[in-house]
């Protein structure tokens, strides 16, 4: 991974300067966002075509097409409210839990349409796991039970199999050494960083193909953050990872590909630029990307 020395990023919840706000003609402004930055022949895990999502009458994202490379880390960056969370929640059909939510476009998981009639959303979510911004272990369950929860939901009953897979997931999540002596303690008795790794273990225990991570480190201190970043690089050998982050250094450190989203004049998030991480951080093609990643805005 290229080492980049980036100036600190602007706090994401500050309003954008006017020049970063698109005014009208959104589709033309975003016409250059190529959906496929990886070399020809790279295996594709997820393929999103023209995805739009609504909350009632509010359009949150519009016309986003991206191919996600298999066994790679893809980062989504962009200012607050540009629809990053909404977008990835379309991938595992979590978007539909919002009242009056609607999704348009096509999302193919290994070539199969995630939104085809008759597809069980629960099955999609077993294949596309998710780690949330705030660690959310199940409070009534011990460390082991937390990791085993997904397996039990899937109907795995064999105790030996469950304990093997729990151990493996905890090792993969780099948590095993810290909890192996006390696997029966409540999951919420762990530290914040450990809880987040527990949530990662819980997600990968069901062996999904894709793992979505929505700002997984934003509630953690720098040491815990680094641990999770290390972990992500390792996980990418087995899983396809999509991470939303507000931290440019983090995107630069962990990801292979980076997509920059921006809210357009129509109030919906659009894809501005999607390229390999090394490219986008050293040589952004779009002025808006450059302004955002350098925090210079002008």
């Amino acid at each position, binding site marked *: 991974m290229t080492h980049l020395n980036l100036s600190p990023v602007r706090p994401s919840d500050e309003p954008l300067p006017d020049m970063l706000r698109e005014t009208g003609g959104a589709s033309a402004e975003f016409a250059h966002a190529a959906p496929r930055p990886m070399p020809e022949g790279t295996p594709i895990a997820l393929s999103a075509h023209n995805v739009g999502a609504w909350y009632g009458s509010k359009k949150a994202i519009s016309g986003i097409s991206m191919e996600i490379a298999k066994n790679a880390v893809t980062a989504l960056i962009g200012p607050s409210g540009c629809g990053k969370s909404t977008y990835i929640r379309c991938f*595992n059909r*979590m978007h539909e*839990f919002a009242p009056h939510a609607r999704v348009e476009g096509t999302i193919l998981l290994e070539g199969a349409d995630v939104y085809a009639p008759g597809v069980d959303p*629960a*099955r*999609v*979510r*077993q294949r596309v*796991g*998710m780690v*949330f911004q*705030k660690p*959310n*272990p*199940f*409070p*009534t369950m011990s460390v082991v039970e937390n990791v085993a*929860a*997904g397996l*039990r*939901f*899937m109907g795995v009953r064999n105790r030996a199999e469950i304990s093997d897979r729990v151990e493996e997931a905890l090792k993969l999540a780099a948590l095993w050494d810290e909890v192996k002596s006390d696997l029966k303690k*409540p999951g*919420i008795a762990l530290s914040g960083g450990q809880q987040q790794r527990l*949530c990662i273990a*819980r*997600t990968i225990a*069901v062996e999904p193909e894709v793992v979505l991570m929505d700002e997984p480190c934003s509630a953690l201190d720098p040491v815990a953050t680094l641990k999770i970043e290390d972990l992500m690089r390792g996980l990418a050998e087995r899983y396809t990872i999509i991470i939303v982050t507000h931290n440019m250094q983090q995107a630069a450190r962990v990801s292979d590909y980076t997509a920059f989203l921006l809210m357009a004049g129509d109030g919906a998030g659009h894809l501005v630029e999607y390229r390999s991480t090394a490219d986008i951080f050293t040589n952004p093609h779009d002025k808006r990307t450059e302004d955002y990643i350098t925090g210079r805005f002008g």
Partner: protein
Amino acid sequence: MTGQERSTFLGRTEGLYRRRKAFDRVMTGAMALAVVLAVIPLALILFYLLRNGIPGLSWDFFTQDPNRPGKPGGGVRNAIVGSGIIVGMALVIGVPVAIACGVFLSEYGQNRMGAFVRFLIEVMAGIPSITVGLFIYGLVVANQGHFSAFAGSLALAILLVPIVARITEEMLLLVPRSLREASYALGAPRWRTVLRIVMPTALPGIITGVMLGLSRIAGEAAPLLFTALGNQFYTTDITQPMDSLPRRIYVYATGPYDYWHEQAWAMSLVLVGIILVISLAVRALFGSRVTVRQ
């Protein structure tokens, strides 16, 4: 710290700071007073219960059934056991219904059907307990042609349902959304999420609700008057009239004999004691579980 140092430190906000401090003291005092006023009746009740109730307690009190009126001695075994049976059966009937209602309201009740059920439960909660007794009298007792413990349990169950259902709903709604999302994201269907994640997380709260309902119905005499009626003799047959503590307290307390009054006090003490012991035991059993974290 001397006054002068403080005034330099606080500068021009000194006056404001003093006023806030004074206001804070007044409010703290007012709240302490309110607490004392609330605790006084409770302390008095406990004091009188213990003072007047303890003399009536004896081995016979728990193991004997009532003597014929006017003959001192005897006990209230029939009423203690009867209350246990009637209230226990009311819990068995009412708690599952109430919890099912609460689950429905919180998980599937964000629609017109839910609003309707919520309205019904509110109406139910507002019905006076004696009316519930009359209702069961008309529905069960009059149809069967005789009073029975079962009818009493039904009346108490009707009183229990709205209390427990509402608390259950509230407790389930308190379970953070993030936990449901975590469960869905693992591929759990909705009913499984409710059963395996939401309900266990809310369990301590739901149990508190059941305890509250239990204390409420265990002390009810009115709905039992024309349902379980009462019984001079010991019985465990739920198709027969059965005695209960509140009803026997009522009869003894308003009766002419001094030893009845003494036994009425003792029964009141036993009633409060049993509820207290059950609450503490349940809390000891489930209270150590991790509670809902916001």
